[in-house]
C-alpha cells in the first residue's frame, strides 16, 4: 500500500505520544471495554451530560483519524460492521491500551502533585 498522505510514522514507543489531548484520552477510554461506532463513542464521552451529544462530528472524526494514524485505534474487522447506517466500529489497539495506561499514570502523577499542593477540590 502506498504511504498515506501526510501522516507521521507510527510510533512504537507509547511514551512519545504523550501527553494525549483530553478528547483522544476520552476516546481511548470509551473504547477500552468494547468496540464502538462514532456516535456511541460520543454518547459515552457525553454520558455525564445526560446522554446529550455536544461533540461536533468534525472534531470527533479528526481525532479518530489522528489516533488511527498513530496506531492507537483501528477499524474493527469486517463482519462487525453490522449496522452500515450507524457507521463503522472502532477498536482500541494494544498500543492504544498501553498509551492510555501511560496517560492515566501521567495524570495520576499530576494529580498527586496537585494534592500535595492542596489544589485538589475533593480535599478542600
Amino acid at each position: 500500500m502506498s504511504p498515506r498522505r501526510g501522516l507521521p510514522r507510527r510510533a512504537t514507543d507509547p511514551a512519545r505520544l504523550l501527553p494525549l489531548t483530553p478528547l483522544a484520552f476520552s476516546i481511548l477510554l470509551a473504547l477500552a471495554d468494547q468496540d464502538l461506532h462514532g456516535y456511541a463513542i460520543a454518547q459515552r464521552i457525553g454520558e455525564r451530560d445526560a446522554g446529550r451529544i455536544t461533540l461536533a462530528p468534525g472534531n470527533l472524526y479528526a481525532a479518530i483519524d489522528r489516533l488511527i494514524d498513530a496506531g492507537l485505534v483501528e477499524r474493527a474487522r469486517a463482519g462487525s460492521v453490522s449496522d452500515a447506517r450507524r457507521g463503522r466500529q472502532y477498536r482500541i489497539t494494544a498500543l492504544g491500551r498501553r498509551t492510555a495506561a501511560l496517560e492515566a499514570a501521567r495524570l495520576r502523577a499530576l494529580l498527586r502533585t496537585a494534592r500535595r499542593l492542596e489544589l485538589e477540590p475533593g480535599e478542600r
Partner: protein
Amino acid sequence: MDGRRAFGERLLRLAILAHPPAFRARYRDEMLSYYRQACHAGEGGSWRTRFLIVSVLAAIREGWQQRRALRERRPTAGARGAAMYSILGLPQELRLAFRSLTTQPALTVAIVLTIGLAVAANTALFSVFDGLLFRPLPYRDAERIVHLEIAQSRRTATTSREARGEAFARVNTTSSLVERADIRSRSLFDRSGPAATEWRLRPYAFSTSAFELLGVRPSVGRAFVEADATSEPMPVLLGYDIWMTRFGGDPATVGATVRIPGTASNERYRVIGVMPPWFAFPGGANFWTPIRPSYGSADMPSYARVAPGVTIDALRAELSGIAVTPLREYVRPDGAFALGVLLAASGLLLLLAWVHVAGLVFARASGRSAEIGVRLAIGASRLRLIRQFVLEAGTLVTIAMALAVTLTPVLTTLIVSMLPPEITVGQHVSPDARAFGFAAVLSAIGLLIVALAPVGLVRHASPIHLLRGNSRTGSPAGRTRVRTALFVGQLALAAALVYVAGLTLRSYIQISDAPLGFDARDLYAIQVPRGDAVIDATGRERLDRQQMMVAETIARIAELPGVSVVSGSHDWPMEPGALSEAVLIAESDPARDPFRGHSPVIARGYPDVLGIPLVAGREPTAVELDTVGSPPRLQLALANQSLTRHLERFGSPVGQVVALTSALRFQIVGIVPDIVLDRADRPVEPTLFRYLPPPAAVGVVLARLEPGRTPEDVGLPVVLERIWGSPAPTSFSITDAVRRANVDYRARTFILSLICALSVPLTLVGVAGALSHATRQRTREIAIELALGAEPRAVRQRVIGHAVLAAAFAIGTGVAAGIGIGRLMAATLYGVVAADPMSIAGTGTLMLSVAWIAAFVPARRASAISPIEALRE
C-alpha cells in the same frame, strides 16, 4: 422539521469540503450519519441550531488544520521526486508552470505581447469584416427590404422626366410592395459649421414610416408620427453617441428644445428620442429629422418592403427602369475586397506570430534539455513532462488572450474610425461573441502549436544524452529541418507582408501626389450658409437676400489685400460624393446618343481661381452672362478636354450645344484641361461646367490667396462675420479636402503599416533567436574548426553568410507571394503595378538587413568560442 434537518445536512456537507479529499472519502458518510443520529436524539430546535453551528465550525477548523499539516509534511527532496510528480495536484503544477515562466521574464513578455497583439488585431479585423459582410442586418425581416432608385441606363435625357413620373406611379401602386418609406440625405448644416465639424452631425430625413419599415425603435422617447412632419420646432431623434457626448446621457434631454449652432431651422430642435447605440442607418447617420412637406413631394420612396412570396426578380421585371437592390446588397460595401486583403494580411501576421512563438518555445525547451534529463533520470514520466509543457503553454496563451480581449475593442474602434464612411454605410461594428469565438479558435490552434513544439523533444529524449548536454544526439536531422523551416517561414511571411505594405504605401504616395490638373495650394473654400438659419424671410425675398449676400461676400473678399482671385461653384473641388452623374447629349450628334458625364455648376472666374488656363475659347463676360436669362433659354458652359474629344467628332467643340434635358441646354464657350474633381483614382469623365447666370448664387465661395498667406492673415473671418453675422461660415483649405478624399488609401496604408510595424521586430527577434540557437548547437563543431586554425573572422563571416543566403531564399519566396497578393488587390492600388521594382528593392533591403542584424550577435558569439573550453565540456 425534516426540511430544517435537510438544510442542516446540506450545510454540513458543504463544510466538510474543508477537509482534505482523502479524509472526506473516509469519514464523510460517517460524519453525516453521526450528525443525523445526534439530531434525532437531541431535543429542542435551539439545541439543534447550536449543534449545527458547532458542527459546521468544527469541520471548517479541523479541515483547515488538516490541510496545513499536509502542506508541512509534503516531501520536497529530490529522492522522492517521482513520488512528488504523482502527488502534486493541478494547482501545484500550475504554480510550477508560473514559476518556470517567471524565470525568463523577457521571453515570457515577448511571447505574450506577440500573441496578444496578433490575436487582438485579427479579432478586431474579423469583427469589422464580419460586421460589414456576414452578420445579418439588425432590421426587421431585413431580407425583404429593398432599395429603389431610377436606373441609370441609356435613357435619353429628354424623356427622363416622364419616365420618372411613370416610375413613381408604378412603385406607389404595385401590390408587390407592402410598405414604403423614404429616407433622404438632407443637408441641414453648413458643411464647415460647428454642427458638422465640432458636433459631427450626420443628418438624414426620414419619412414617418421609415423606422417602422426597419423595425427599429428609439431606446428613449418615441419615433416620428405624422404630426412631426409639420410641427415646430423641428423634432429630431439623436444618435446615442451624440446624446452621450453632447448631453451627458441626460434623460431630460428627451422632450427638451436644444440649440445646435451652425444648423438650419433657426438652430432649435425638439429632441423626441434617442436611437439605440448600434443604429446608424444610413451611412453613419446620427441625427434624424422628419421629411417636411416643403422638401418637395412626388419623389419615389427610396426603401420598401417586398410582399411575402414576391421574389426580387419578379419585382425587377415589374418595375423595369427602376434599380431594385436588396438592402443587404445595398449596404454591403464595394470595399469588401480591400477588407478581405487586410484580414488576410493580419491572418498572415498571426501565422507569423505563432510560428515565431513556436520557435521561441522550441528553443526554450531545447535550452532546458538538462532539466528534462534530470527529471527523466529521477523517474518522471514523459507524459508528466509533456503535461508540464502544455500547462506552461496554456498559461502563456491565457495571459495573452486576456491582453487580446482588452485590446480588441480599442483596435476595432480604431479601424472603424479609419474606414471611409461609404464602406461602413449604415452598419454598426463592434466585437461580439462571434469575434471572440473566432479569437478563441485562433488561440486554441496556437496553444496546440506552442504546446506541441517541445513534445517531440521530450518524446525522443533520453536522460543520458540530455544530461551530457549534447542534445544533437536526440534527433539531429529532424531538429535541424524544423529549425530551418521555422527560419525560412518567418522571413518569407514577413517579407510578403512588408512587400504588400510597401505596395500600399507607394500607392498612397502616388495618389497623394497625383496631378489633379489644378493647384490646390493657397486655395480656400467658404461654404455659404443656406436656408433660414441666417436669413429671416421667406420665398422669393429670401432667395434675393441670399443672392445679395453671396454677391457681397465675393466682392468683399476680392477687395482684401492678399487675395488674388475669388469665384464660386456649387461644390468645392474634391468634395466627397458631390460630383453626381449626368446624362449628356450633344445636339450636333445626328444620332443624339446620350453619354455619361458630370455637370458641375460654376461662377465666372472659376478657371482663374483654380489656376487652370483656357485651352480654347474664352470665359463669358459678366454682361454676356447677365443677358442669358434663365432656362429654357440657351445657357453657357465650359467643356473639359474629355468632353471636347467627344464633341470633336461633330465639328469644332466651341459653339456646340450640349443638353441635359430638353429644357436645360448649354452652348460651349470655352475649353479647359481635364481636372480631377472627386477622386484621382478614377478617370476624368466628360464634364460640362455650367455657368450659373446671375442673380442665382453659388453654394461655395472659392478664394485663392497669395502664396504664403492664411485666411486669418488676410482678414477673411472678419469679412465673413460682418456679412453673415455670428456664427459666421468658416473657410477651409482645399489641400485638406484633397487629403480627405484619399481616406481609404490612407486607412489601408495605416493598417498594413501597423501590421508590418509589428511583424518586422517580431521577425528580428525570431530570426535572431533561431540563429543563436543553431550556433549554440554547433559549438563543438566550431570549436574544432577554431582549434584546427580557422580564423574567427572567417567563422563569423560564414555564420552570417549562411544566414543571409537562407534569408535571400526566404525573401525571394515572400516577395513572390507578395506580388501574387498585389495582383489580387490590383483594384485597390493606384499608380503601381503588382511587381513594383521599388517595393521589391525596399523589401529586399529591409529584410536582408533584418537577417544580417539578427545573424550578427550569434556570429560574434560563435567566433568568440574558446576551443579548449568548448571541447572539454
